[in-house]
């Protein structure tokens, strides 16, 4: 290994354990639904067809699945089931449906809105044991997998065969494809390969009554009837459990280039984006923007762990962008990229920058971008808002939130008695998606009151979305009204009730 990049592992930077979350049920005004309680008969029934290793009731085993990745939500489930086949999933759900036992499906548990952990005593159904790659067609690039296959495993498997998975995101090492589809994850390359609504060709799912929906098509075109699989994409476990997915995979690009650029204003970021779209066209695969505060947070998080990495640029510009191109001809791509870079520097949009010289530097630059999310939790906790907004007002939200916090004397980097450490913004300019993170030393009501409903009202005013790619989960269930009108909410509710008349699927979340 030849670069510093390889010696730094951002993955060690999970949120600090100092903030032990209370039970979600004690922290938030939520009441247990009218569900049955789990009894010995239920366990006995599950034991009749599940391997003993796949039925867990130990507190130790349940602790890990009761808490979300950010340690913000803590459920009280007494049972974890890890089925090994679609028919096992079906038997479990049919029983729960008949008995009116609430369940929560769980993939890699990397969600950021509390959607994958129980709120009360819901049974956790983990898809981790459904982890086979089912088949791959080398000509069309269609891959069919079990829901529990880890995203990175699938991507590496495909890369060996000259293809890639069309989705890529920071949590790829632990998140599962079923969970990605159930939450309609967006990620880093949506700009190039589109959303899962386009790349997913088929879905197999178990409905709450135990029926198996076999929509595992590998056809690109199919105009027969309603496109039911679309209902499951982004359904967050509210209408069934996805057990299998077929997805259209693009060929691996032979030539990948990454540039990291420094800009002095958000105005320049927008102009550079326009220029990049024109100059790079079909090879532009990522256009990410991070602000100075984000870079400072990563830097400080690394230093906290006695690690240090070279900043991409010598001076801290207020806005920094990462541009990635993926194409088939390296000389051709480099020519295009160089022309674009020359142009943007001549126009004084870009004031400084670096271009990765090799794969090691490509990875190092991406780590600066991908490391932000993990670094942001290092001071105790983080309020994450993942929003869609029109590009011109995107960073107005970051500034408005930071001003509110400073006005109320709640934010300071040096004074540790203040609850907020920093307010940072980063995101996918190419998709109009901003991540607003408020890094806090502790989760407090005072800060929450400053943030909400202010953030949601700001979004509603600009016709944005309160959740661009993280989903609704438990966190945003009350905020849906800011993005969807009453008619749409009613329709979602009716669809949910049709699939799940007893309301056992992932309750207290997604839709009120």
């Amino acid at each position, binding site marked *: 290994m*030849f*670069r*510093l990049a390889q010696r730094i592992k951002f993955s060690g930077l999970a949120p600090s354990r100092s903030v032990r979350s209370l039970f979600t049920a004690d922290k938030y005004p939520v009441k247990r639904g009218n569900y049955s309680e789990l009894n010995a008969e239920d366990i006995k029934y599950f034991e009749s067809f599940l391997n003993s290793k796949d039925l867990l009731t130990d507190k130790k085993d349940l602790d890990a699945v009761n808490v979300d990745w950010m340690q913000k939500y803590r459920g009280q489930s007494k049972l974890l089931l890890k089925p090994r086949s679609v028919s096992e999933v079906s038997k479990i759900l049919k029983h729960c449906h008949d008995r009116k036992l609430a369940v929560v499906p769980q993939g890699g548990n990397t969600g950021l809105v509390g959607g994958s952990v129980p709120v009360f005593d819901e049974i956790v159904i983990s898809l981790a044991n459904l982890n086979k790659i089912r088949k791959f067609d080398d000509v069309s690039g269609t891959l069919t997998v079990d829901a529990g296959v880890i995203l990175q495993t699938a991507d590496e498997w495909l890369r060996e065969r000259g293809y890639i998975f069309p989705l890529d995101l920071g949590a790829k090492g632990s998140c599962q494809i079923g969970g990605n589809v159930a939450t309609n994850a967006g990620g880093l390359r949506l700009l190039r390969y589109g959303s899962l609504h386009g790349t997913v060709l088929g879905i197999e799912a178990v409905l709450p009554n135990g029926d198996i929906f076999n929509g595992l098509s590998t056809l690109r075109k199919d105009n027969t009837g309603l496109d039911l699989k679309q209902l499951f994409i982004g359904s967050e476990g509210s209408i069934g459990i996805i057990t299998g997915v077929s997805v259209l995979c693009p060929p691996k690009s*032979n*030539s990948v280039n990454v*540039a*990291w*650029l420094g800009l002095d204003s958000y105005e320049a970021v927008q102009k550079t984006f326009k220029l990049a779209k024109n100059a790079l066209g079909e090879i532009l695969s990522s256009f990410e923007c991070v602000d100075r505060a984000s870079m400072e947070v990563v830097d400080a998080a690394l230093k906290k762990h006695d690690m240090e990495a*070279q900043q*991409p*640029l*010598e001076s801290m510009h207020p806005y920094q962008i990462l541009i990635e191109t993926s194409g088939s001809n*390296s000389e051709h791509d480099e020519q295009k990229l160089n022309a674009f*870079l*020359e142009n943007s*520097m001549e126009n004084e949009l*870009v004031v*400084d*920058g*670096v*271009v*990765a*010289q*090799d*794969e*090691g*530097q490509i*990875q190092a*630059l991406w780590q600066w971008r991908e490391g932000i999310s993990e670094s942001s939790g290092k001071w105790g906790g983080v309020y994450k808002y993942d929003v869609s907004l029109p590009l011109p007002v995107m960073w107005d939200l970051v500034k408005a939130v930071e001003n509110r916090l400073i006005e109320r004397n709640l934010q300071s980097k040096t004074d540790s008695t203040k609850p907020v450490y920093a307010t940072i913004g980063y995101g996918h300019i190419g998709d109009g998606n901003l991540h607003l993170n408020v890094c806090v030393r502790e989760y407090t009501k005072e800060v929450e009151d400053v943030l909400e409903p202010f953030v949601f009202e700001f979004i509603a005013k600009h016709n944005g979305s309160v959740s661009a790619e993280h989903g609704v989960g438990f966190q945003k269930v009350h905020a849906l009204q800011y993005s969807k009108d009453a008619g749409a909410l009613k329709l979602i509710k009716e669809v949910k009730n049709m699939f799940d008349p007893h309301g056992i699927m992932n309750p207290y979340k997604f839709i009120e």
Partner: protein
Amino acid sequence: MSNKLKILVPLKRVIDPLLKPKISASKIDLTGLKFTTNPFCDIALSEAIQLKEKNSNLVENIHAVSIGSAKSKEILVAAIAKGANSASLIETEKSVEPLAVAKLLAEVAKQQKSNLIMLGKQSIDSDANQTGQMLAALLNWPQATFASKVEVSSDGTSVEVTREVDGGSVTQKASLPMVITADLRLNNPRFVSLPKLMKAKKTKIDTKKIEEFGTDITPRLEVEKVEEPPVREPGIMVNTVEEFVAELKKRGAL
């Protein structure tokens, strides 16, 4: 003798170290793969530049040189962007062995009137680890290989080098002129600044054909075959100590 350092940094263009080329028909297939500066050469260059930045009075110039195809110009342009003063290319499509490389570099060192040569300890493609040592012998200069720290005396007449050796490090001192080969821990090369890279592209790179040097580059080595290392067989799980011992006995390890 002038006290000013005239540093020569040889650079080799190699396959991106993180890529794994395919082997087909006993040949390494490099088509379509990304190439870059050999990481150890990059570390040597980076050290030379840092010496210059720390003490500009001490270093008169840094000259980067590469032996290879016309595409090696790319890494020389990057070297200038990083801070080398000038660069030259000895152009050839042939593969050149360490001894011939050392002879050519000795020639360049004479032309450039270099008094310090800083190069990578080895290239990551051929892993020969010979060029620096041969070069020192041909020039009859002192050498310090596997450097992890380099300190030039304030008057610029001698250099103290900490070298990585088995089980620790050795610090040696020699007077100039000398040859230093860089090890991994010497420094972490920086990213190349884009504005400087744009400017560097306009710099002229002095290019000569390898034949103009009159050095004998006929290969002395013959590659018989190239093959992948054997794939490691997956381990097995044993449940008891007895089973473990029995398994060891079966395999003749006990």
